[in-house]
C-alpha cells in the first residue's frame, strides 16, 4: 500500500507545482494513481534501494532517479530502471508468502 500512499502524496505535491520523482516497486499500483513521474525498481518491500549495507547499489538507484527527474518525460511516465533482485524474496512477497 506504500506505493499508493507515495503516489497520492506525489499527486498532491505535483498540484502544488513542486518538481517530483518517486520510486515504485509495483507499477500496476502506480498506474492506478498516475503520479507525474515514477521509477520502477524490482526490489523487495523493505529493501527499496537495495540490500542492507550495499551502499554502492543504493546510490546507483538514487542517482538514476535524480537523472530521470532532470529528463524530459510526459506526465504519468513510469521508467523501468532495470534493477532486479538476486533471490526469490520479492516474488514471495508478491504472493504474500514473505515480508
Amino acid at each position: 500500500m506504500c506505493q499508493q500512499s507515495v503516489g497520492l502524496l506525489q499527486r498532491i505535491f505535483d498540484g502544488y507545482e513542486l518538481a517530483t520523482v518517486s520510486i515504485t516497486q509495483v507499477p500496476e499500483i502506480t498506474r492506478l494513481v498516475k503520479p507525474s513521474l515514477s521509477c520502477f525498481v524490482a526490489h523487495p518491500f523493505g529493501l527499496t534501494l537495495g540490500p542492507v549495507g550495499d551502499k554502492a547499489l543504493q546510490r546507483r538507484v538514487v542517482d538514476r532517479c535524480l537523472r530521470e527527474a532532470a529528463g524530459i518525460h510526459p506526465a504519468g511516465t513510469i521508467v523501468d530502471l532495470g534493477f532486479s533482485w538476486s533471490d526469490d524474496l520479492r516474488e514471495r512477497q508478491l504472493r504474500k508468502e514473505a515480508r
Partner: protein
Amino acid sequence: MAQREEHRLGDDRPRGPVWPVARAPGAQLRRSSRRSFVPETPPSPQFAGFAGVEYAHVRRVAYPSFEWRVFDQPSPRRRLERPIEAARVALVGTAGAFLPGQPAFSRGDDGDPSFREIPADAERIRLAHVGYDVPRARKDPDVVFPLALLRRLAAEGAIGELAPWAYSFMGYVPEAQPLLSDGGPEVARRLRADGVDLVLLVPT
C-alpha cells in the same frame, strides 16, 4: 537543528496487532511472516498483478472497506528548473521513520495518515511500519529512508543541497482521505516554504 511542531493525527490510538488473522471457514493458513499467519486470499480479478493480491489481502485481514484510489489522468509534471547539481532536494518517505522523542506511527488496522518532520542532519532514525520487515531495515535505514545517502550526495556535490527537513509517513493508510485533505497538502506547503527544487519520494 530546532524541531518544528509535529503534525499528528490519531497518535493516541491503541496499538493493534500486525496483520491479525481473520480466517474464513476453510481458508488455508500460509506462513507470511515471523510474527503472524494470514489466510491464503485469492487475488481480486478487478486489478492486475499485485494490485489485486494486495486489494484482496487488505480487505480480508485488516480493512474490509479498503478501495484503491484510481485516477483517469496523470498529475501534471513540473520540470526541474536547475541542474540537479544545484538543486535543493527533499526526501519524503513512507517507511514510518521517526526520531527518538517523536511518537511511533500507529500499527493498527486503520493505518496512520500522520507525518513526522525529520531534520536533514538527523542520525538516529527509528522505523515503525506494519507492512515490511522493519528489524531488517533498522540495520541500514538508508534502504527505505535514504537521508544519510542524500547527505553524502550533497557533500560530494552530486546534488546542490539537502532540504532542511525530510517528511516521513507510514505508508499503510487504507483510508486515504486524511492524507489527501490534511497531511499531504500540509507537507506540500512546508516543502514550498523550504524552497525545495525537487522532491524524491521513496516507498517501502
